[in-house]
């Protein structure tokens, strides 16, 4: 299967400072890829290069088989910028009708699009009166125009409440089912964890890690955290058997490497009734993210 987006050895510098160096990434149709990185890591620069808004120094970028920013690519790519803005004097409906016309679609589709993002009730109000979350929905509505093959979404869920976020990802799933490829950046790591197929971590303009979350978790080899709660009075006995644990009252907290996990679990379950509760926490995406971006940056 050919990729919708292919980036190879992309390098872009601003006044001698490398904003992106030697970045390679591919996104296939129907795939959701999350782009993570601290502020200034190069996420927005990379997106702008993909959209053809800024030129790049070297490497190759192919968007649906065309050069970024070409007429062909622009017809097939939708963009949702970070902090999306519109002219405050237009209503949501007028703004969407305008965007539909720019894409050569019928302006009568506008109301349907606004309904899809849950904004039909405010369609005839001026955008100047909208909240940030409502503007974000207008931004999302315009990104749905004309069955895009690639969606580039810069912090798409910022300003949305939890319910809206869920609706937003449900919309993305519909697009993905139709074969659209999605590249999104986000700071909300927990939602990225559940809602994307692959993760790419940028740090200081370099791609430091890339792959499905499980792979990254294995590569990072971060310890697993376990919390054992002992029944009355048995805490010291359990703590003695697990010398690396830190005891606090009836609970014992300990960390162990991935490969030791089963052995430790065996020890704990060996206590049978003496254990009241056991919680196992694999390293979170946050831990993995911190691990990869720190290893490179400091």
């Amino acid at each position: 299967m050919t990729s919708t987006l292919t980036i190879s050895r992309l390098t872009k510098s601003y006044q001698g400072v490398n904003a992106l160096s030697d970045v390679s990434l591919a996104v296939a149709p129907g795939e959701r890829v999350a782009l993570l990185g601290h502020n200034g890591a190069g996420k927005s620069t990379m997106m702008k290069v993909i959209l053809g808004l800024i030129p790049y120094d070297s490497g190759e970028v192919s968007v649906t088989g065309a050069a970024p920013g070409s007429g062909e690519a622009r017809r097939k790519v939708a963009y949702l910028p970070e902090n999306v803005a519109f002219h405050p004097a237009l209503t949501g409906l007028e703004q969407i009708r305008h965007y539909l016309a720019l894409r050569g679609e019928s302006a009568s589709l506008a109301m349907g699009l606004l309904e899809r993002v849950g904004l039909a009730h405010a369609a005839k109000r001026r955008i100047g009166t909208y909240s940030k979350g409502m503007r974000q929905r207008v931004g999302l509505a315009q990104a749905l125009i004309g069955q895009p093959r690639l969606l580039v979404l810069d912090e798409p869920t910022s300003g949305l409440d939890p319910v809206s976020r869920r609706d937003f990802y449900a919309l993305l799933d519909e697009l993905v089912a139709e074969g659209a490829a999605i590249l999104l950046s986000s700071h909300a790591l927990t939602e990225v964890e559940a809602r994307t197929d692959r993760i790419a971590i940028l740090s200081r303009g370099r791609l430091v890690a890339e792959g499905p979350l499980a792979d990254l978790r294995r590569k990072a080899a971060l310890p697993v955290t376990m919390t054992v709660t002992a029944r009355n009075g048995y805490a010291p006995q359990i703590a003695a058997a697990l010398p690396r644990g830190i005891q606090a009252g009836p609970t014992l907290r300990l960390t162990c490497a991935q490969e030791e996990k089963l052995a430790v679990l065996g020890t704990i379950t060996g206590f049978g009734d003496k254990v009241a509760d056991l919680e196992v926490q694999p390293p979170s995406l946050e831990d993995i993210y911190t691990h990869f971006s720190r290893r490179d940056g400091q």
Partner: protein
Amino acid sequence: MNRILATTASEFRIALRNRWVAIAVILMALFSLVLSAAGSAPTGAVGADRLSVTVASLTSLSVYLVPLVALLMSFDAVAGEVERGTLPLLLTYPVSRGEVLLGKLFAHLAILALAVAVGYGIAAGAAIAVDPGAAGGLPALWRLSWSSVLLGATFLGAGYALSSLARRPSGAAGLAIGLWLGLVVLYDIGLLAAVVADDGGAFTTDVFPLALLANPADAFRLFNLSASEATAAAAGVGGAAGVIPVWQSMLSVLIWPFAALGLATLAFRRVTP
């Protein structure tokens, strides 16, 4: 074409809501009314019909007012989009920068044409009401109307160019006022000073006519004054109007809008969002 017209429709709507349509129309109507009221006294001496005299006064008015209104409408066109943050998204749409500018130009030009039509219409109506023979000045009024719209197009294009160069609305506004002062006010004063100092030398005969043609505002004034010869004597720059053939000033009036739009497109292309 649909993409251009979509931009035009949105821009017109924005201008309507921002009161720009009302401001432009009221401004032109008000000044035209004042002019036709003030211009009613000296008609008999010139011996021309009332409307031709009104056209001469309107020419002097428009040469200041039309560029001003055009620059006020256009200085925000690109810089405003940059400041609001709406430009990056717009540029990812399958629409060229030239099409964006053309769309804006058509909307602003429509507003300007409306203001010109209302303003001149009022002045012409007043002239015809007082002097039944004023209908003889209608060709001059028609000429003034379309050349005013072209003058407006030139300064709209110049405004877009400055807006692209400045990239911030405040900077663009400053540049626009500077351009207006330079081309409409200071340019003539400078030329007159040079002509006086030259005292009939090579500058007056060779450079001066070219300098007048090179300035769109002066070319507009020359075109309208030399075309209606009856009133040429009444105006200050009218003296030069006799020296320069009408086709030359007309050419300048016709070429400048395209040149300005070309400059605007070049400047807009250099804006990286």
